[in-house]
């Protein structure tokens, strides 16, 4: 036990581990600051960030367990009464504890930061957070086992990079599922993750790996039995692990004339969504707002599952403005209501650097869609919407954009648009016809609308 | 003595600890022994003289060259042989390959001359018949001799050796002393050691360091003379620190114990009295 305390003291003072803690908190904290906090995702991301600490713990445990084979120590240690199994046991006790502490030092501040920022959606899953702690403990036992079974410190890096590969190439766990140490990406549409079962699995695997480390000192019944029992627990647990049933949907609610339908746990975001769209709802007559369909938060719904300020509102504003102005997907160039819809989106996100898309459909074989297209994040799991232009599929040209910009520069535009709403949103009203009502000098386009440039 | 190597106000710190504190010394042709307890700064001084560590203050000049200057340091290294405390080896090399590798790094570019030189230094350390043996198959003492062999490459003018006799058997130690005393006739040899016997038999001059400062500089006889009248032999165990001699008497240093007879002072007695080792009055 004294040796374990000694190892623990060394581990807790290990600069490699604490440097990893700082980097993980800073990098993930900076990334998280760009998104509205969703505790469900925040917890998963915090655990993913803590895997950097797990890597550091793996290396530290590997070096600690392999210490007695470096620098001519085997000869000196060989004559001591305390044998190698005792040293392995000490590392196996100390390193997981230090690793768990360090992982907690990453996860707790990141979750706390999310709670402080608000409005917080989603639910905090304590089992999920403990997965990070267990991962660090597993990394520690793996480091010790590698030191005992392989003579080179480099093998610890092979394991770390292998794990990194799984995180990067297989983030949703398509291959391996819950048998993987960690699935970094959460797909909220599948329901809550089986975090408690996965925690039990990780702990069982960590114990099994620790027992395997001890088995290096000879085939002994206790470690062999512990390894067998741990695996007997881990295998059925992971075989049955699956996403939990989805929570019951929550009621839609009205706000500023629009109807918002959040996912369960996302009710705190409704006020934020409404505030983001207020530049539109404050100028559109209520009868026009009534035309806007319910804004549903779902995969490929109007409201995304995640929210990145400065990006997400642009996408939602396009859909709301298009519906409010009565636009439909297809050519809308030279129409007053197209200018009005663009003006509405411009009130949410500036049109200064906006260009009409050169192509309104993805050019075949092209790596990217080109100018004028927008990418909006839909989910934490990497789903995005790639949309041509600012309106939800309604075509416009640079002349419409120029007219909308002119309207945005006019402080009295809101009053005039509200006063002449019916005329301006009439499908028959052209921009030239509406120019006196809008108070702008209409710029006219080349006539082609939706044709590739 | 014409100094070949001069050290002025040399200071080196490691964090808050001062390993060398304004040390000034001069070395000429001959063998100089560097004595001192653990942590006295011997290895720090050796490393600075071997140009592998830069001082924080003060300077070194060897053969008119200043190692603080990159080009002059390189020129000095061409005239330097260095045996570090932990030399390290490539265990999968043969003895010949290992020494040849260092010879290449000492810019011995002519292959035939280099091979001759490698064979010469291996013979000097009595490893001529082990040239084709892998280093991993050599004993600890043989590895130490191999490390010494590389320090002798190129017949250097300045030879810096950090604890060179560690691990050598008595016969090898004798050979080593003979070799060094021969080299010391025309070269500057500096050796750091804990073996006062090496100092007694080899060194014309001794420098004792304590806590980063020079506390003695002179001949071995002068160091031994410091113990004159302070070495005693008794038949009963005296107070303080003592050790039993082969003839069953007790040897102690310092003030005369009751019924003690004077003993013959040696370098080690002078050294212990100088440092004021535990139980030994300074």
């Amino acid at each position: 036990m004294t040796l374990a305390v000694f190892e623990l003291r060394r581990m807790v003072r290990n600069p490699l581990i604490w440097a990893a803690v700082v980097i993980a908190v800073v990098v993930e904290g900076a990334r998280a600051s760009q998104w509205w906090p969703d505790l469900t995702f925040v917890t998963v991301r915090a655990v993913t960030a803590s895997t950097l600490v797990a890597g550091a713990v793996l290396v530290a445990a590997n070096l600690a367990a392999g210490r007695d084979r470096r620098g001519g120590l085997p000869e000196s240690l060989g004559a001591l009464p305390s044998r190698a199994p005792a040293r392995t046991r000490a590392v196996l006790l100390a390193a997981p504890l230090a690793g768990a502490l360090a992982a907690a030092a990453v996860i707790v501040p990141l979750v706390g930061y999310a709670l402080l920022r608000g409005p917080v959606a989603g639910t905090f899953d304590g089992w999920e957070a403990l997965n990070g702690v267990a991962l660090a403990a597993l990394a520690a036992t793996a480091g010790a086992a590698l030191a005992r079974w392989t003579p080179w410190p480099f093998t610890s890096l092979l394991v770390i990079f292998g794990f990194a590969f799984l995180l990067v190439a297989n983030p949703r766990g398509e291959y391996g599922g819950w048998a993987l140490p960690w699935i970094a990406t959460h797909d909220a549409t599948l329901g809550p993750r089986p975090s408690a079962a996965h925690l039990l699995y990780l702990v069982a695997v960590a114990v099994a790996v620790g027992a395997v480390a001890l088995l290096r000192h000879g085939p002994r019944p206790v470690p062999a039995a512990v390894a067998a029992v741990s695996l007997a627990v881990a295998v059925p647990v992971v075989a049955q692990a699956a996403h939990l049933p989805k929570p019951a949907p929550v009621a839609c609610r009205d706000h500023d004339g629009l109807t918002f339908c959040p996912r369960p746990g996302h009710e705190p975001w409704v006020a934020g969504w409404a505030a983001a769209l207020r530049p539109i709802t404050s100028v559109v007559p209520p009868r026009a707002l009534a035309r806007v369909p319910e804004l549903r938060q779902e995969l490929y719904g109007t409201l995304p599952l995640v929210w990145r300020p400065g990006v997400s509102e642009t996408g939602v504003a396009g859909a709301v403005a298009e519906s409010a102005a009565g636009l439909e997907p297809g050519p809308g160039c030279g129409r007053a209501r197209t200018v009005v819809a663009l003006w509405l989106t411009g009130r949410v996100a500036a049109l200064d650097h906006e260009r009409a898309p050169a192509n309104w459909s993805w050019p075949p074989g092209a790596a990217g869609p080109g100018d004028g297209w927008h990418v909006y994040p839909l989910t934490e799991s990497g789903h995005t919407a790639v949309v041509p232009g600012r309106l939800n599929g309604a075509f416009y040209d640079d002349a419409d954009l120029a007219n909308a910009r002119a309207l945005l520069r006019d402080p009295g535009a809101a009053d005039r648009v509200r006063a002449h709403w019916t005329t301006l949103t009439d499908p028959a009203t052209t921009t030239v016809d509406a120019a006196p009502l809008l108070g702008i000098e209409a710029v006219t386009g080349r006539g082609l609308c939706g044709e590739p440039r | 003595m014409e100094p070949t190597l001069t050290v002025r106000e040399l200071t080196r710190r490691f964090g808050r600890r001062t390993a060398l504190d304004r040390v000034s010394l001069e070395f000429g042709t001959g063998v100089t022994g560097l004595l001192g307890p653990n942590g006295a700064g011997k290895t720090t001084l050796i490393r600075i003289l071997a140009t592998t560590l830069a001082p924080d203050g003060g300077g070194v000049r060897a053969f008119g060259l200043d190692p603080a200057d990159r080009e002059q340091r390189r020129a000095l290294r061409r005239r330097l042989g260095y045996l570090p405390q932990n030399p390290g080896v490539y265990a999968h090399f043969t003895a010949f390959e290992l020494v040849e590798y260092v010879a290449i790094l000492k810019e011995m570019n002519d292959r035939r001359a280099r091979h001759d030189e490698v064979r010469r230094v291996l013979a000097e350390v009595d490893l001529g018949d082990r040239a084709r043996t892998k280093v991993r198959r050599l004993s600890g003492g043989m590895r130490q001799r191999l490390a010494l062999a590389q320090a002798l490459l190129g017949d250097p003018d300045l030879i810096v050796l950090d604890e060179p006799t560690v691990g050598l058997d008595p016969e090898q130690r004798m050979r080593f002393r003979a070799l060094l005393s021969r080299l010391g006739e025309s070269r500057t040899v500096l050796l750091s050691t804990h073996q006062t016997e090496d100092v007694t038999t080899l060194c014309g001059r001794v420098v004792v360091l304590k806590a980063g400062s020079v506390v003695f500089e002179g001949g071995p006889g002068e160091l031994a003379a410091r113990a004159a009248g302070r070495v005693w032999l008794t038949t009963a165990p005296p107070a303080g620190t003592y050790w039993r001699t082969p003839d069953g008497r007790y040897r102690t240093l310092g003030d005369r114990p009751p019924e003690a007879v004077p003993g013959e002072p040696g370098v080690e007695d002078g050294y212990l009295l100088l440092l004021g080792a535990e139980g030994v009055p300074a």
Partner: protein
Amino acid sequence: MRALALPLIRAVDWLPLAATVPAVLVGAWLVPAEFAVAVVRLAAALLAAAAAFTLVDAMAATTAATPVPRRVRQWARTLLAALAAGGAWTAAWWLAGVPGSPVGPAGETVAALLLAFAGAGWAVRRAEGRAVALAGAAPLLACGAGTWAPAGVGWWWAVGPLLLLVAAVHDDVT
């Protein structure tokens, strides 16, 4: 230089690269095409971390006092390792069948190698032992922390400053 290169090739600790290269090549050959980019990027990081071990000189204390400057010895090790790692990465890129130009990924690989050399080069200045070279992986993992470091040709911009950094850590210790 040739006289130095031959014993240096033998002196270098090739074991980590020897263990990594086959793993990387087999991985690039076997994994499905959808993972090709990820495999090639991982190969870059893994080969860089392995290459960093070549900077560990078991005889550093002895060779430090030789007239051939430390920067020459360390750059020679760096070039040897970079050639081996670069060759293996090129083979992995070809085996994985990554679509598009290799210019961007190659820049990332060069940057990864230099990052690893800088990390390990800094560490071997300060401490002895083979395990010290693990420090080469630290900057690589730090770059990949939280999110995967961005891909693209932008890594070529980092090569210049990283070369200077490696030159600094390879410089003479005194």
